[in-house]
């Protein structure tokens, strides 16, 4: 178990810069999730931490020791690969024991550790099998077991669940969370799936194009996205982002509408400036048209049983998504009045940065 510090990490391949100076401190025992769209550099960053990629600039410290130029094998970290990377010619037991043999532990110690991990991951019955005789979920657990037996300083996960089917992914996600509770190591987890990020993380690191956009606990990131990118990326279905303009202090006008909406504060932004107003689907109520902030024409209704999603359009605005609890009945092409929950609105200035309104 260890803490990790990244100081101004840069990575470029030739002229293409992938990581533009990342600073991050990860505390001992923390579960940190790197999330971002594909190509944002999250996997590269993980591989840099692992030592599989050399940095172009900056420093990596584990427990205060600089490991920037230390080989991957000597950093004492364990990694679970997206492809699992199980050694196909070795049994499950051998796969897990391989690292321990390389650490030249004695046989009984190896056996003890492998069996303990196998028990923890319910792999005891499969120890003699080759990876190809295992199901996807079992292979996944072997890959995790291979990391656990090492008792590493930090666990690194590179999209470990993306090859599993939806049901198994949810189950394994829970197992991972339980595992973290049980063994409590420092874990860094890379995913593009924000549900995994929200459910697993102590802290989420949102990355875009090689830069950190926001670091925070899942709810912090959800409730207070630092900018338009984070607002759009975290939350599913995504937040409604509507063009708006400031009409004086605490007054916002949506689109081409004339009726202003009162918000607690509009901070330093200048009146008359173009801003973006964000409202999550669950923070919009369906109301009578005379009380409505805006009126939409329903394009599509999705009934999920426990909740209902309305997709509708209003002139001059992008498509809006509204979440309703329960099984609300709406017809296509029906006009519906919407009211935004004032206390849960988000405002972003012309540069896309959040305006603190609470």
């Amino acid at each position, binding site marked *: 178990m260890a803490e990790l510090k990244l100081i101004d990490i840069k990575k470029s391949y030739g002229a293409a810069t992938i990581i533009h100076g990342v600073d991050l401190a990860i505390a001992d025992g923390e579960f940190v999730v790197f999330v971002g769209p594909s190509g944002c550099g999250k996997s590269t960053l993980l591989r840099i931490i692992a030592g599989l990629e050399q940095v172009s600039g900056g420093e990596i410290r584990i427990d205060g020791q600089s490991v920037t130029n230390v080989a991957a*094998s000597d950093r004492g970290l364990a*990694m679970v690969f997206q*492809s*699992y*990377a*199980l*050694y196909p010619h070795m049994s499950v037991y051998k796969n897990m024991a391989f690292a321990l043999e390389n650490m030249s532990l004695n046989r009984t110690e190896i056996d003890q550790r492998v069996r303990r991990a196998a028990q923890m991951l319910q792999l005891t019955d499969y120890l003699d099998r080759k990876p*190809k005789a295992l199901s996807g979920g079992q292979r996944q657990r072997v890959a995790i077991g291979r990391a656990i037996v090492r008792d590493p300083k930090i666990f690194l996960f590179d999209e470990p669940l993306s090859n599993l089917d939806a049901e198994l992914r949810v189950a394994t996600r829970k197992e991972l969370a339980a595992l973290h509770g049980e063994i409590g190591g420092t874990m860094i987890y890379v995913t593009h799936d924000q549900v995994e990020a929200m459910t697993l993380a102590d802290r989420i690191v949102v990355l875009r194009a090689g830069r950190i956009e926001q670091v925070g606990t899942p709810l912090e990131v959800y409730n207070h996205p630092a900018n338009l990118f984070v607002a759009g990326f975290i939350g599913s279905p995504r937040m409604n982002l509507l063009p708006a303009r400031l009409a004086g202090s605490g007054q916002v006008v949506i689109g081409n509408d004339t009726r202003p909406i009162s918000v607690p504060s509009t901070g330093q932004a200048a009146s008359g400036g173009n801003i973006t107003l964000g409202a999550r689907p669950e923070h919009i109520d369906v109301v009578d048209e005379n009380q409505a902030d805006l009126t939409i024409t329903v394009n599509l209704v999705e009934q999920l049983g426990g909740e209902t999603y309305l997709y509708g359009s209003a002139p001059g605005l992008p498509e809006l998504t509204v979440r309703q609890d329960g099984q609300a009945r709406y017809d296509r092409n029906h006009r519906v009045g919407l009211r935004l929950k004032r206390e849960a609105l988000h405002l972003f200035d012309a540069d896309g940065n959040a305006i603190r309104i609470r």
Partner: protein
Amino acid sequence: MNFAHLVTARRNPKGWHWTDIAAYAYLLLGVLLMFGPVLWLILSSFKTQASLLEFPPSLLPMSQKEITVPGYPQPLPLFTVTMEDGTTRELAQVRRVGIQAQMIDPANSGRQLRVPIDKRVPVRQFALATENYTEPLERFAFPQFLANSVFVTVVATLITLLINSMAAYALSIYEFKGKNAAMLMVIGTLMIPITIILVPVYLVVTKLGLVNSLWAVILPGAATPTGVFLLRQYMLTLPRDLIEAARMDKASEWQIYWRIVMPLTLPALAVLTIFSIMWRWNEFLWPLAVLTKTESYTLQIGLNAFQGELQTQWQYLLAMTVMTLTPVAIVFVFLQRFITTGIANTGMK
């Protein structure tokens, strides 16, 4: 699917389409072209020297029937003779004088007959001249040649596999500066045939005092650019994640090579093994240059000894060629499935 079903497979089980006939004719031609010479070689290796040279040649090894007649110490050749009255009798020939032959009836050895030679036809029978095999093995040092060939092939193949795979590992997986330059040099040497470097290599071998030692045959050809290239290309297809997983698992370069890469490269190693065995077993020019003493000859050089300047002992040459072919053929039969099964199951999704 059983064999009978396989060789009578048709487009439509009900009847013969012309494409079936064309396909079988074409395949038959292929079989004839491939196996004809081998079959001819094997059958001919059992012929006596005389029947090898006779014209017209026969496919099966036939020899003239001989018979022992009381009163004659040597066995006499047997002929079918057409008599003047038109009847045919089997007679043994005592001697030939000009166009007349003195014949004798084996059943009645008292009376000799004179027969024109164009009235007699030799009685032939199927006979395997196994002495073609046994005599060289007894009179010449063929067992020694065989042992030399086996030693050269086995040791050279092991060395080739080891150092070629290590070079391939370095050129595909290990990271170092100048990797591409090293690769280019290896490919460059691919294009230089042994005939061009024969003399310089011979000089090196002489300086090392290896002439007439089997190591002179084994060592210079141990690093084959073809083998390095073949293995490198295969190793490049191994999932990168596996190597990185091994690095994360604290494996040293040697352990990655020996415990991860080598087992996964088995199909390519099998292919190289077949190649190496065939190259080494059939190698002729280089051993001919460095092996001058009979006791260090390999089989191929030994075979060459039957081909004299004035006379070639075809019957021995053919028999020993069959002997020489057999081991590689067997090796090929056992290892060829590796060529086709090819790609390893990588266990990756």
